[in-house]
């Protein structure tokens, strides 16, 4: 298992794909936090709760890009045909998918931590630049940072699982973007009022990082367990699908 994991980690860092995803993520977080930090009226940013909301783009964008990273780790292999040599040297397909999950979770955690840190740093800088009193001390950033890290790591695992099930790279990436950016927020928005939407994986990721919208999300610890269950279920389904299907 360790050998396959080391191979997957080398694959992660031996192309510029993940570097490109990371740079894209940092740029988007920077842009989103700056827009909110400088665009919102000062009176909307004069409480600890409102200032915490400035950190939300870090969690959302970090989670999304980590999910794409995870998905690309398997759909990229299928797209470029490297899945064949990969499975020829490591015929244990469940072991290969498991290694991809761990490697992607590690990289995803880095994405989440970086996105959370950039969001925290830029939002504080924006508030200071506008002479708005900062109501958050350093301890208030711990949960958002840890939450972003955990949410991104778990969504990276979900990305691997979804990619292993769908296999087509474009369909997988579009599907993940659509789910995280639109489906949960728009189509299922009303469900939040019915308390069902809180249990969806995107909402669970937001809850882990301590976001407190109205109506409220799950408690962070509960959301962490729920999102971990989503990750395990999706990765397992991806492993089973990969194990049962023929490789073209």
């Amino acid at each position: 298992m360790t050998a396959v994991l080391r191979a997957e980690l080398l694959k992660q860092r031996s192309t510029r794909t993940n570097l490109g995803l990371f740079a894209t993520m940092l740029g988007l977080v920077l842009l989103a936090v700056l827009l909110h930090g400088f665009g919102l009226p000062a009176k909307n940013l004069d409480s600890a709760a409102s200032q915490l909301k400035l950190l939300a783009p870090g969690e959302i964008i970090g989670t999304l890009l980590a999910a794409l990273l995870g998905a690309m780790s398997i759909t990229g292999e299928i797209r470029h045909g490297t899945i064949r040599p990969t499975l020829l040297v490591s015929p244990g397909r469940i072991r290969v998918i498991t290694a991809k999950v761990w490697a992607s979770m590690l990289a995803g955690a880095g994405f989440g931590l970086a996105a959370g840190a950039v969001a925290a740093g830029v939002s504080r800088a924006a508030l200071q630049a506008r002479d708005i009193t900062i109501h958050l001390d350093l301890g208030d950033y711990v949960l958002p940072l840890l939450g972003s890290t955990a949410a991104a790591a778990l969504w990276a695992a979900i990305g691997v699982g979804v990619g292993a099930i769908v296999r087509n790279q474009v369909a997988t990436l579009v599907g993940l973007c659509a789910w995280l950016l639109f489906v949960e927020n728009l189509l299922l928005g009303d469900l939040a009022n019915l308390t069902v939407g809180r249990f969806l994986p995107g909402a669970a990721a937001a809850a882990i990082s301590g976001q407190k919208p109205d109506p409220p999300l799950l408690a962070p610890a509960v959301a962490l367990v729920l999102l971990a269950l989503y990750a395990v279920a999706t990765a397992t389904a991806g492993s089973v699908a990969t194990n049962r299907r023929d490789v073209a």
Partner: protein
Amino acid sequence: MIEATDSSKRHGAYSGISATDAATPATEPPPATPVVAVRALSKRYGNVGAVEDLTFSLDPGTVTGFLGPNGAGKSTTLRLLLGLAEPTTGEAHVFGRRYRDLDDPARRVGAVLESNDFHPARSGRNHLRALALAAQIPSARVEEVLEIVELAGAADRRVKTYSLGMQQRLGLAGALLGDPELLVLDEPANGLDPAGVHWLRTFIRRFADHGGTVLISSHVLAEVAQTVDQVVIIDHGRLLAAARLDELTGRGETLEDIYLELTTRDAS
């Protein structure tokens, strides 16, 4: 020696088994486990049969041409043999076991199924290093195979800058990482220039001369005729012939004559 069973005997003069069995002395010890043993292998996709009741086996130290028209089922058979696809019925074993059940497959079997199974943005060296890591092969072996396939000077370039011939050789380098006993190559001469074809032929002969077994899928008959000891010819997923090349061409016919006769007869 090559063995084929009943399905090839239908074609009389081109069935290798009767000739090879007759030539086997009664006192000879029982044969070792074949390197490749395909028995009653079938693969169906819905109502379409890609491989139908295919049986043949290969012994060590032989170079076998696996021939057939496009769509004959050659690539499907190789995927079944290498555990990338599951047979509908029958079995395909290497060294007496399913590929998936081999303890250390990269050290037993090296395979190249497509000429461009690489991430275009990854360097040739990193492609090989990732395979070596997964197979627990020392990184020094990566440098050795790069030298063998004469790609050491280009190893740090991204694969998308490689010519088709260089990609073929990189694929071969990956197959050689574990210093395997069996090489399975699907259309290895595709895209190679004459010098590349000559290099490949020399390489394969040298590999076999050192005891290795090679199974080459191809439809470049002229090239195959210069490289292989024996052939397995299939069409529509069925075995048409399995015999030593010198047995097939012993009456003065060329491999192309025999191939066309068999495949034309099968099509009609």
